[in-house]
């Protein structure tokens, strides 16, 4: 049974359970982007064209937390290359960005990795052992991020992105099953 068919069956059961057909509704969502920790303030992120992608994966049966953490360490190391060194952030128009409060120019890698979270249940995934992996990118890094997450590693340029993409492929094939659920947090969305 395809994912589409499963979803339609679920919706049929959901609507039947309600006992009535609800009036169609679409409502814009006002996003709240967390700015704590390593993520700079939203206004800075938006001005730089920053984007965060959250992938929620289901681990294969028998995969331990230790194995995930080993992958995480190796994966984080792939980002630590000279070409991806921290640098002052610029707005998408090319101008310098300064923090409104401190006046400082934030320094970021253009492609960043924010870590993983293991959980038995996540609001973004069905019950089960899941792993959330977070990537962030700004400026030209947005295009790199899209390539890393969607293309065959050996086809990606610049070449220093290839080990990063290969690490993601390893995660997908060795530790995870099925396709990940994808959430895109784009701080350019109006709040």
């Amino acid at each position, binding site marked *: 049974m395809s994912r589409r068919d499963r*979803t339609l069956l679920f*919706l049929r059961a*959901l609507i039947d359970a309600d006992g009535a057909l*609800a009036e169609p509704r*679409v409502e*814009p*969502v006002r996003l709240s982007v967390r700015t704590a920790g390593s993520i700079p303030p939203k206004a800075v992120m938006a001005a730089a064209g920053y984007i965060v992608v959250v992938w929620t994966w289901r681990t294969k049966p028998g995969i331990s937390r230790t194995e995930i953490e080993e992958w995480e360490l190796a994966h984080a190391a792939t980002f630590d290359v000279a070409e991806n060194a921290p640098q002052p952030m610029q707005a998408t128009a090319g101008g310098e960005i300064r923090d409104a409060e401190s006046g400082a120019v934030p320094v970021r890698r253009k492609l960043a990795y924010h870590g993983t979270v293991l959980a038995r249940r996540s609001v973004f995934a069905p019950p089960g052992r899941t792993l959330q992996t977070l990537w962030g990118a700004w400026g030209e890094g947005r295009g790199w991020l899209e390539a890393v997450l969607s293309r065959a590693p050996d086809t990606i340029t610049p070449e220093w992105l290839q080990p990063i993409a290969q690490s993601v492929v390893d995660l997908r094939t060795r530790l995870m099953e099925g396709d990940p*659920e994808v959430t895109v947090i784009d701080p350019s969305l109006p709040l």
Partner: protein
Amino acid sequence: MFCPTDRLDRAPGVVLRPMPEWGLAYAYTRARPALTELNATTWLIAMLCDGATLAEIERDFAETVRRVAGGNVARDTLHRGLALLVEAGIVTRTPGATQETAP
């Protein structure tokens, strides 16, 4: 106003993200960009918009909701939902070919 031969599909780049625990789905429209919450009815309609014709969608929608809505109610609800989804940029409409009638 939609025609039976119109084809309806999710717009390019739209990510439809089911949230089954909450009985709703989120649609991310990269072109705008915006995140939109869909209730179960509009979620169902968006799922059916996979390049099918309006006539096919009407048939599948009526079948799915037949236990809670009659044919006319289902059809009217579907059309209101489609209008909302098209306006939000989640679904695109491709006008169907008009049939020539012989003189």
